[in-house]
C-alpha cells in the first residue's frame, strides 16, 4: 500500500516535471515564432519603405528618413503589410496618393524606359566612339618611319661605325 502510494507520488512528480518542461518548450517556441514573425514583418516593412520616396526630404527613402511624415508612412506600410497586402498593393496605394514620384525607381515602362535604357546606350555609343577614334589614330600612324634624308641617315651610319672603331 505504502509502496503503491510512493509510486503514485513519484509518477505524479514525473508528470508534473514533464508538463512543466512541455510548457517551457511551448512558451519558448511561441516566443521564437513571434520574434521571427515580427522580424519578418519589420524586414518586409523596411524592404517596401526603402523603395518609397520620403516626400518631404531630398532623395531619402521612407525607410531612412527621420522625418515625422516618413515615420507615419512607415506605420501605414506596416499596417497594410499586417492586413496581408503585397508589396505591389502597398506601392499602388502610395502611387495613387502621391503619383509615381513616390517611387524611388521609376517603373520600367513607357517614357521611363528612356531613363533605364539611356545609360546603357551611352556606354555602347561611347565604346563605339573610342573604338573608331583609336582605329583612326592607329591607321594614321605609318608602319614604317617617316622619310629621312638619305644623306642624313648615311651620316648617322658613318658616325656609328667610327664610334665602334674607337
Amino acid at each position: 500500500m505504502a509502496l503503491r502510494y510512493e509510486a503514485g507520488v513519484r509518477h505524479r512528480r514525473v508528470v508534473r516535471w514533464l508538463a512543466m518542461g512541455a510548457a517551457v518548450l511551448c512558451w519558448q517556441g511561441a516566443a521564437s515564432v513571434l520574434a521571427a514573425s515580427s522580424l519578418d514583418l519589420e524586414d518586409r516593412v523596411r524592404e517596401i519603405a526603402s523603395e518609397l520616396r520620403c516626400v518631404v526630404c531630398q532623395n531619402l527613402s521612407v525607410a531612412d528618413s527621420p522625418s515625422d511624415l516618413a515615420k507615419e508612412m512607415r506605420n501605414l506600410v506596416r499596417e497594410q503589410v499586417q492586413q496581408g497586402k503585397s508589396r505591389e498593393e502597398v506601392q499602388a496605394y502610395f502611387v495613387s496618393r502621391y503619383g509615381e514620384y513616390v517611387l524611388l525607381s521609376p517603373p520600367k515602362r513607357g517614357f521611363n524606359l528612356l531613363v533605364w535604357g539611356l545609360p546603357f546606350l551611352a556606354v555602347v555609343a561611347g565604346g563605339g566612339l573610342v573604338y573608331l577614334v583609336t582605329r583612326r589614330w592607329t591607321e594614321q600612324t605609318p608602319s614604317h618611319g617617316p622619310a629621312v634624308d638619305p644623306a642624313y641617315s648615311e651620316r648617322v651610319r658613318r658616325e656609328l661605325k667610327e664610334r665602334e672603331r674607337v
Partner: protein
Amino acid sequence: MSWRRLLIPLASVPVILLLAYGFRTDPKAIPSPLVHKAAPDVRLKAFDGGEISLAGLKGKPVVLNFWASWCYPACYEEAPLLEATWKRFKDQGLMVVGVDIQDKEANALEFIRRFGFTFPNAPDPGSKVSIDFGVYGVPETFFIDRQGRIVSKHVGAVTPAVMEAQVQALLKGQ
C-alpha cells in the same frame, strides 16, 4: 564634310531642350494624381468634439485646408483668408474644413483662437488623412466640388485671387 561640322550643334539641341524643361519645372512641386478624382472618404474628430465626414458633405462644395501651428509664415498668412471665405460663403453652402497635421494640441488650439476660426478644424492623428490626400507639406488646400471630386489643389498659402476664383467656380458648379 559639312555634316560633321553640324554634328556637335545638332547633338546639343536635345540636351539644351532637356535642360530648358528641367530648369523651368519646380522640383518641389509634386503633381497630384488625385486632381479630377473623387476625394478620399475621410472621417475626422474635430477639436470641438464634432465628427467630420467628407462623404457626409456631398452636395456641398468644400475647401479642405491642411495647416499646422508650426507652419510659419505661410499658414499664418492664409489663416485670415480661410475664416473670411467661410464667413462670406457659408450661407451659399460652402464648407471650409481645416486639418491640423503633426502638431501639439495646445499649439493648435492657440492657433485656432488667435485667428478666431469658426469653421470646423480637426487634428490628424497618425497623419492618415494627410497621406490619403497625398499631402507633403503645409499649407495645402484642396477644392472639392458638390459631387465630392477634387477640382484642384493649391500648394502654399492661398492668395485672395486664387481663393475667389476657385470658390466662385465651385459655387457655380452643379
